[in-house]
């Protein structure tokens, strides 16, 4: 039997990533899987007021930073929420603010730096430890981070390939069906279905396989999210299914042992699809809470699972 710890959608949160690494010995897991989305979405400029004071807008509020201690605390808050910070003079801030290309370049630089920082931290923490750790991006992540994960010393990449988990074959797909946010790894449903089906063909024993698809299958309880209005604001009264029809099709067709999913943060839960147990551990990365699921896996069945919140 192996004990598997699965986490997804930490979106650049430093505290969640550190908690993830710390959880492995505490939970006593054999295999850890950190699926996308790995990178964050918000850049916070810390603009100099004087040589020793700064200001920024954080979570919709104006924040004045007057001491080095406060500065360190604000940076930590930013990093823990999955955001990125940059020091700028007033002139630099105004020049960047008006130039989308500069913002993109700066953002990408900070995102990649944090991914590298995480990979280095994993090398440091996993050295000599008995755990296996797999990592893959999600639809929000740029393609450039794939090479970084591939080049990692101890973390094993798993996106778009079949890897062995102590006798269980695991296939992983970082792509999603189209979203309102036009993220880097989206495919129309027909193309995604083909891609997933091709991936499923790599599996020899479907009955013990794990499908590690970032996007959950359409129509189950793991892909329910609030409907968005025309301004991309959530509506309170209506939930819709946002999963992938392609994922649903291949899961129902091949009936693997286990489906691990993410993408829809608010749909934490587990549900059966025929003989397949589908799980989405959800995400509360912005609150610095690591949501995950521990799964006890026998050779031929899922013995049990428990959701975690740490």
């Amino acid at each position, binding site marked *: 039997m192996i004990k598997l710890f699965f986490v997804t959608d930490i979106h650049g949160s430093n*505290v969640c990533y*550190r*908690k993830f690494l*710390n*959880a492995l010995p*505490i*939970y006593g897991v054999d295999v850890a899987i950190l699926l996308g989305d790995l990178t964050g979405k918000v850049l916070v400029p810390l603009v100099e007021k004087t040589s020793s004071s700064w200001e920024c807008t954080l*979570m*919709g*509020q104006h*924040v004045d930073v007057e001491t080095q201690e406060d500065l360190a605390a604000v940076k*930590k*808050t930013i990093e*823990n*929420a999955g955001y990125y910070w940059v020091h700028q003079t007033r002139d630099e801030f105004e020049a960047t603010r008006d130039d989308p290309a500069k913002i993109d370049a700066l953002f990408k630089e900070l995102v990649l730096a944090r991914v590298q920082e995480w990979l280095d931290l994993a090398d440091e923490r996993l050295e000599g430890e008995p755990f296996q750790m797999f990592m893959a991006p999600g639809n929000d992540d740029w393609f450039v981070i794939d090479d970084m994960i591939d080049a990692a010393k101890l973390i094993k990449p798993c996106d778009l390939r079949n890897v062995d988990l102590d006798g269980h074959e695991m296939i992983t797909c970082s792509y999603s069906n189209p979203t309102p946010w036009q993220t880097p790894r989206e495919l129309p449903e027909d193309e995604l279905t083909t891609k997933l089906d091709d991936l499923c063909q790599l599996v020899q024993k479907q009955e013990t396989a794990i499908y590690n698809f970032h996007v959950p299958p359409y*129509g*189950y*309880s793991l892909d*329910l999210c*609030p409907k968005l209005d025309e301004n991309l*604001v*959530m*509506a*309170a*009264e*209506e*939930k819709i*299914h946002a999963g992938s029809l392609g994922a649903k099709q291949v899961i129902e067709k091949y009936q693997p042992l286990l489906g691990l999913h993410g993408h829809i943060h*608010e749909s*934490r*839960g*587990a*549900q059966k699809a025929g003989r397949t147990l589908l799980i989405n551990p959800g995400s*509360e990365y*912005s*609150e*610095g*809470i*690591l949501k995950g699921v*521990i799964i*006890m896996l026998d050779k031929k069945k899922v*013995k*049990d*699972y*428990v*959701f*975690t*919140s*740490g």
Partner: protein
Amino acid sequence: MWDAFGVGFMNQGLTPSIVVMTSLGVGVYTGGNMIVAVLLSVLLAGVGFPLVWGILGGSMPRSGGEYIYNSRIINPVIGIAESFGNAFVWIMWIYVLAPWVADPGLAMLAQFTGWDSLASFTTQTWGVFAVATIANIVAFLFVVFGIKIFARVQKIVMVVGIGGCIVICIVLSMYSKQDFINSWNTMAAEAGSLPYNEFLIAVEEVAGESMPSTWNWFDSLGVMVAASWLFAYSYCITFIAGEVKRPDKTIMFSNLFAILVPGAFALWTAIALYNIADFNFLSAAFYADNLDNGAWDIPGYALDFSTNYVGLAHILNPNGFLGVIFALSYIAFGLWWVALSYLAFPRIIFAWGMDRMGPKWFTDINPRWASPVKNHFLCFVLGEAGIAMYVFWTNSPLQGLTVTGLEVVTVFGVTAISALLFPYVKRARGIWEASPYKNWKVLRIPVITIGAVFNIAYLVILFLFFFVMPDLRDFTTAGVIFYACIWALGFVWFYFWKWRNKKTSGIDTSMTYGELPPE
């Protein structure tokens, strides 16, 4: 914001809650001043509840209510014990309030329209059971098909409920004291009942004391216990905290408005009532309505309806159509209270299931309706069993206040303590650091701490007066034992599931809650 306000406001149950404030509040604390009670309640609850529940809900915007806050801030064991109590509370609301749809709800409608057979049916034991069962089924159907249908029906029920309450207030405001006395005497003469002055004397004889002619502070604070139904229940917005737009603002402001609006209506009603009748007469009328068989326990009283505040409005204007509007307002709010239990209870046990503090099916979501259908069925079965028990066995309207007592101790009290501790405890440091309210301070004191102090002050008043309430003395002793048993059951439930998970699958459920090192 509108839907969130609707959930909170509808749980304040405007028209029946004003009946509770008058008949169960002034009816017991006869020297209570409703205006003072309302203003003090609005001040304490209006500051405390929105800050406590708004900041907790906005900091942890997940559906499931206070279980999430108390588990994370205080301790998972306290969280489950408190939540266990609250799950009971929501079932108790079904069996206490569904029968109110029959009597006095439908009974009032029948009495105001002269429909004697319906009046007779809805006041008999089997009639109450039948109507309460129908209310339970209808409420179940309103919620089981998901939040979209729930929100649509809620709008209709709100219009009926608020509209009727406005009409009652307008009627009470349109007439003078002399008009009321004349109407009372005319109606009494036609029915062979007691005129205005003789009714007061008859009530005083039954009570064995004179009705006070002016108010006092002690009784006014006592009225706050019953008036709490108007102010303390908007918290159930947090059961849909994960599904509202801008939870950082919506939960707080919808909570505030859900207190201010009932406050305005209660104040309007109180001023209008003091305008149409003498202080001692109102105390007598509400005292009489609070007797076992209502005002008919007063020898010589023979009007078709009892003397709650809706009945007094009917005396001023006995038009049958208006009577239907009055009664429908009461019925709409009563029915919606039952529906709100179906919103809360299934989500509470869903949250337990996610933490493996219950069977796995607690977490089953029906993909078609996006709701925990199995949990709804469980809620229905427990509610129906409770209705049978209440109607055929206990059957006292004051049980409603007993539930409030349990809620004050269990839900509001523990959550207010969570709010007080939130900025300071290590366990929740990460959540507080990420909270959008972290920098909300007055004189360097976190605003949530100030809110918690107001909230606790309000709850202490409620609890003290709940215990000294003469009509509840027996209930209170039994109630304390009852609360202790429910809390003990909560602890047993927690440790049972912890043991079972360890035994059957080797999973240590404490991993579910354990704070992971953040460095």
